[in-house]
């Protein structure tokens, strides 16, 4: 077995849907032993989410679940029942990190809050993900991705000024918070290794937007009352051009903040007469004053070139431009093939499929696929019997009580 960066780290996840599972996926992919605890019979919510092969629902074949849970062990266990709690405590006793994203009042009521778990394992790092945090007036508010994005400030400036603001696609609040949770879990682990003391992290998903993504806007707001508002496919207060445009076979994104980049872009387009229009001497004013006129000049050239062609022509000449690729374009992209970004994983129920990999390559302790996402309760015997020492009879009785 390859020695990976986190091969000695033991993680227990009692999580559902995306945020906590994505957090532990990042750790599992770096070699951590992640034991995922799922509710008996139903399992993680993402098992019902899909996409499913041929659109036929099957809780062993949900694409979202498969993607998020590769490299993990899976057990079924209801830690909110007394008998389940006892088993759960044995898992916690042996863990370095515990990640959970159930509502904290449920967690607390079941006696699985940090204060209780600290007694079981004084050196435990516990990461609690919640929409708005475990304190404050909104701690019990209900939320889906769209609400977290709204409060966190990432939605307001997306869309056309005259239409409704747009939530980012694909539950980004949960992927964002899962990433930040994995990062603070590592920081905490260093701290724990140093002091031996446990740590509880109360991570607010809305805050994950409001800080790293939005928070640097606070000072410009206080100084100049500068507030970003919706500007469609354009970006306000930036030199022309910083926008997504249609071209012959799709869309391209062109971003030329520097004068030399703009001049090169004009060259790439064959030095058209219109580029001598005085408006291009003050490109910073164009977006706020007369973007339609400037864009109309670009259109004929854009519409006679394909997105990959524009990408190549521009990049070869030092002009920052890129194709707007959809998942099909990316899945068949030569560059990603050369970098082995997508990986083949054979899953007992879903079969052999390609999956997105990770965005970083380590020279010494690389990402590897050690196992496909677990079937529901796949590792019950391995974990409960072999690891925790429960007998077959004991397991049978737990099963009967619907604890596992």
């Amino acid at each position, binding site marked *: 077995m390859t020695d*990976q960066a*986190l091969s000695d*780290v033991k993680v227990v996840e009692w999580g559902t849907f995306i945020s906590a599972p994505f957090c532990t996926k*990042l750790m599992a992919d770096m070699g951590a032993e992640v034991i995922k605890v799922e509710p008996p019979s139903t399992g993680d919510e993402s098992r019902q989410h899909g996409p499913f092969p*041929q659109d036929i629902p099957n809780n062993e074949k949900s694409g*979202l679940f*498969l*993607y998020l849970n590769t490299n993990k062990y899976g057990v079924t266990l209801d830690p909110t029942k007394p008998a389940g709690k006892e088993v759960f405590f044995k898992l916690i006793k042996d863990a370095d990190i515990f990640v959970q994203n159930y509502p904290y009042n449920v967690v607390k009521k079941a006696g699985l809050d940090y204060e209780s778990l600290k007694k079981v394992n004084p050196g435990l790092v516990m990461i609690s993900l919640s929409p708005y945090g*475990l304190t404050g007036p909104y701690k019990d508010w209900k939320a*889906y991705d769209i609400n977290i994005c709204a*409060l966190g400030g990432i*939605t307001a*400036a*997306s*869309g056309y000024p005259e239409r*409704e603001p747009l*939530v*980012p*696609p*694909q539950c980004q609040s949960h992927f964002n918070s899962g*990433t930040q949770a994995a*990062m*603070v879990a*590592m920081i*905490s682990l*260093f*701290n724990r290794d*140093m002091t031996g003391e*446990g740590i*509880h992290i109360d*991570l607010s998903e*809305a*805050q994950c937007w*409001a*800080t790293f*993504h*939005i*928070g*640097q806007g*606070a000072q410009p707001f206080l*100084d100049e009352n500068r507030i970003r*508002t919706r500007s469609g*496919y354009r*970006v306000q207060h930036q030199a022309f051009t910083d926008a*997504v445009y249609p071209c012959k076979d799709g869309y391209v994104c062109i971003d030329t*903040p520097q004068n030399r980049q703009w001049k090169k872009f004009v060259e790439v387009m064959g030095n058209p007469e219109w580029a001598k229009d005085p408006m291009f001497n003050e490109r910073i004013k164009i977006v706020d004053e007369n973007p339609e006129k400037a864009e109309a000049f670009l259109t004929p050239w854009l519409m006679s070139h394909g997105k990959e062609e524009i990408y190549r022509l521009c990049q070869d000449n030092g002009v920052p431009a*890129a*194709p707007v*690729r959809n*998942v099909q374009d*990316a899945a068949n992209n030569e560059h*990603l093939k050369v*970098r082995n*970004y997508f990986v083949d994983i054979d899953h007992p129920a879903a079969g052999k*499929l390609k999956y997105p*990999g990770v*965005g*970083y*390559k*380590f020279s010494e302790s690389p990402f590897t696929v050690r196992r496909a996402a677990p079937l529901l309760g796949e590792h019950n015997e391995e974990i409960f019997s072999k690891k925790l020492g429960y007998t077959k009879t004991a397991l049978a009785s737990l099963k009967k009580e619907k604890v596992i």
Partner: protein
Amino acid sequence: MANKLPFEGIRVVDFGWVWAGTVLGHIMADHGAEVIKIESRKRLDGLRLGRVFELGDTLELNPAFHNNNRSKMSITLDWNSPKGHELIKELIKKADVVNENFTVGTLEKHGLGYEDLKKIKPDIIMIKLAPTGQYGPEANIMAYAPLMSAIAGIDSMLGYKGDRPLGFKHAYGDVMATLTGAFAMMTALRYKKRTGKGQYIDLSECETTSSLIGEPFMDYFMNGRVAGCMGNFRPGMAPHGNYKCAGDDKWVSIAVKTEDEWKSFCKAIGNPSWTKETKFSTLANRLANLEELDKAVTTWTINLGDYEATEILQKAGVAAAPVLNIEGVFFDPQFRERGIFLNVTHPIAGDLTLYDLPWQASGLGRKAAGPAPTLGENNDYVFGDILGLSKDEIAKLQEEQVIY
């Protein structure tokens, strides 16, 4: 042990600039690492200047620079010069981590690639962030954040349902790459602690962004389906959207998934007659008549403030939240209570409001944040105390514009 910080004793040589290269350094610095930002008047961090690169006396004023470089040290060293080259190598010999996000091949060209550094410091960790990574047919592209989300696939899904892509109007690719990079770097540090081995990390910012949209990739690999723009529509949820409220550009996000939530929603808004119509009676009917549903919901929200609508719905157990811009985020009671901003004072820029970290932690050591360093603020400490140069030697190097 209470005052020990998780990254105490770890030294980072930080070549990072602008966005993606810089944030991971401040996270390390926030937790006790000695992060030395390598700058030079001959190669200034563009973020000191603002987005349009004009030299001026504003090197200390850009709020974004202070957010991304807080708590770091700064030295001015022309590492292209022969003497500067020797000095940077001496410093790297005494460091644990080197991070950079220059154009691919820049450090290699100057004899500071991983292979060079390994010779002088065998256990060095080097993390390189680049738009499309360090190798592959597209590795040499020039890209800002808007281009990364275009290439990664996420832009193709950000737009109104069935409409053209608008693109992600935030530095999403940059922020997610730097947070993922921080996680990756920390796992490498832990691996080094356990095995004594350093390593090289090649991070592709487009790939880290693609890893945040696993679900549509899985759908493509399973069913050949290519996801497009979905706006605020989500399968299985209705109503689901951002709805117009009373007031200038005020909106409330509302999400209803289960039948129970629908019933609570109807009751909370006073059971108006439209809620009893057959076309809205089931989820399937609501999804089939979505446009009408959204109009009907707006007849309720349009007379209420964004917070007012939110509170009515949350009291009934329905997920809702106001759509906030930076002003809203700044004054929101939940964010106020949890304290998502911090105040620092900078000798030139004065009082600054920076974003704080998005979690509350019990047991985790944290350094009191300071502003970003002034250009070359720590020259004496780094060249004198760490590298052992005398005051005269430092003065001479300054005269020769090596320390410059």
